[in-house]
């Protein structure tokens, strides 16, 4: 088979996945989730913020005052704690410059004080959208919604005719896998593009770093979906794929978290060496959602606006942590799962 034939075949499988997603309503459900997020972004407004630095000046993390209050300098012996946002005039008289900006959500229904730059508020929303909505809820929902694609494709009454064609079975399986990836990639691009545009239009903050979420989240999905493909080949059951994938996701979280703790907790020195070695081995051969979250956090430049969550700090402080190695080892595991799936599919009787 020549390259042109292979590409035409892959194109058809991608088209087939889009048709399947349209017919099953999954495409529309994902677009509805995107539309809700876009409306949310369009409902955002930021006002009264102040630039804390000029263009080109490096940005440093400024910790928020504890419990959002300040202590007036006068009368040090008689400390009066006043809420910062309740009386800025008093603060100004005391020589403290306060910023009384506000970010409103849901078309003004929710108002949040912004004591820093508007780009901080926008980055915060982008981090929530990329990491929380798309990276956690979206990833899980997409894994569940697309879990039936491969089992349906491999159903004997549907697949027999396809398998009786000269195309090698591994190409059929990988074609379908990449078809699903193309569909999810399309949905991710739509989500990121529309939310980026909506936030940009409303806040005039256009940060292209947000676009890093497309490849990073797609890689995460590809890693977990390869396990779903293996389950589909072995069981040909959508239910097994749904529950298996969720369990695998939870297991990956557990292993990733456990391996970080095994390295850094003070009590870890009392752990047997074999346990620590097992945790490290498990870390390298399973997906790493916490690492992926940290990589996304860094890619979005969120560290310039917010304090890094403690678990991310722990991961980063590890002697062996490398974003490239983390992604590469997860991709190697994906390749191994796909190789196992194709082998099982090639030797299966229909």
């Amino acid at each position, binding site marked *: 088979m020549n390259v042109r034939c292979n590409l035409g075949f892959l194109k058809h499988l991608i088209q087939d996945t889009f*048709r399947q997603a349209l017919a099953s309503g999954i495409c529309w459900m994902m677009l509805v989730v995107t539309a809700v997020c876009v409306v949310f972004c369009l409902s955002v407004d930021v006002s009264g913020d102040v630039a804390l630095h000029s263009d080109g000046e490096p940005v440093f993390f400024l910790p928020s005052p504890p419990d959002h209050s300040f202590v007036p300098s006068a009368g040090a012996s008689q400390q009066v704690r006043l809420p910062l946002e309740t009386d800025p005039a008093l603060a100004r008289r005391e020589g403290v410059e306060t910023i009384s900006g506000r970010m409103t959500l849901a078309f003004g229904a929710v108002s949040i004080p912004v004591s820093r730059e508007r780009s901080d508020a926008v980055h915060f929303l982008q981090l929530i959208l990329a990491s929380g909505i798309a990276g956690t809820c979206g990833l899980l929902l997409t894994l569940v919604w697309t879990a039936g694609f491969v089992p349906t494709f491999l159903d004997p*009454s549907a697949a*027999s*005719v396809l*398998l009786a*064609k000269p195309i090698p079975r591994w190409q059929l399986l990988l074609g379908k896998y990449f078809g699903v990836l193309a569909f999810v990639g399309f949905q991710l691009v739509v989500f990121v593009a529309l939310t980026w545009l909506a936030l940009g239009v409303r806040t005039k903050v256009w940060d292209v770093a947000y676009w890093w979420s497309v490849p990073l989240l797609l890689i995460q999905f590809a890693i977990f979906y390869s396990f779903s493909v293996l389950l589909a080949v072995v069981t040909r059951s959508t239910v097994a794929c749904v529950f298996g994938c969720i369990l695998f996701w939870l297991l990956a979280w557990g292993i990733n978290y456990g391996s970080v703790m095994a390295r850094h907790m003070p009590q870890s020195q009392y752990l047997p060496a074999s346990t620590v070695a097992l945790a490290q081995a498990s870390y390298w051969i399973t997906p790493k959602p916490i690492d992926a979250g940290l990589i996304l956090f860094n890619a979005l430049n969120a560290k310039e606006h917010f304090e890094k969550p403690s678990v991310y700090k722990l991961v980063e402080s590890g002697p062996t942590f490398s974003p490239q190695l983390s992604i590469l080892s997860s991709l190697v595991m994906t390749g191994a799962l796909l190789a196992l799936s194709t082998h099982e599919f090639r030797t299966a009787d229909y």
Partner: protein
Amino acid sequence: MRRGRMIQALRGVSLGIEPGEVLALLGPNRAGKTTLLKILLGLCHPSGGRVFRLGRPISQRSTLARVGYMHENQAFPRYLTAAALLGFCGQLSLVPASVLGARVPALLEKMGLTDRAHEPIARFSKGMVQRLALAQALIAEPDLLVLDEPMEGLDLGARRLLQEIIDEQRHAGKSVLVVSHALGEVAQVCDRLAVLVEGRLAYLGSLSSLLRDPDTGGVRTLEAALGKVYRS
């Protein structure tokens, strides 16, 4: 072998099909007909023996490009249109796109599906799905056409069409393997009969010699003769 369970579905079966011949493979349920078919099509892997497809070992999948297969209970993706399905099957059979452009409408017309070409298969009746299944089997103009229970769900007109297509294949020097459990369905179209019973080849020969066969006791009807073969 199926999920760790070993099933001996076929034993000592030896038969072949000549070019321009229509061979009917008959037998009661669980006789091994479908297994034989699946081995021929590369859907199942035999644990022993030698199987050749169009003169080549079955491990050479390239010969599948010259084989057309109509499944017994075909479940096509319901969201595909008839034209899209035929295009996809043609692509899988390595038919050039330029050829497919003309062949797909021609086949749809032959099967009486031209006016439904761009409708999703979900809206098709069982008979229409069967006709579509036959069309996809013919998309690569195969040298070997394998039909598994092809008469199921077909109305009289479609049965006549199927008989015409089988005749066309025979006259074009191509081989046809028809699998059925009912002799009456294939008696008019086949040149030879192969009867499988419990995984063994119980009879291989022409219809006329089946009726003359001393083992069948000179019975007058085909069904009675076949019943004798089943019991032998």
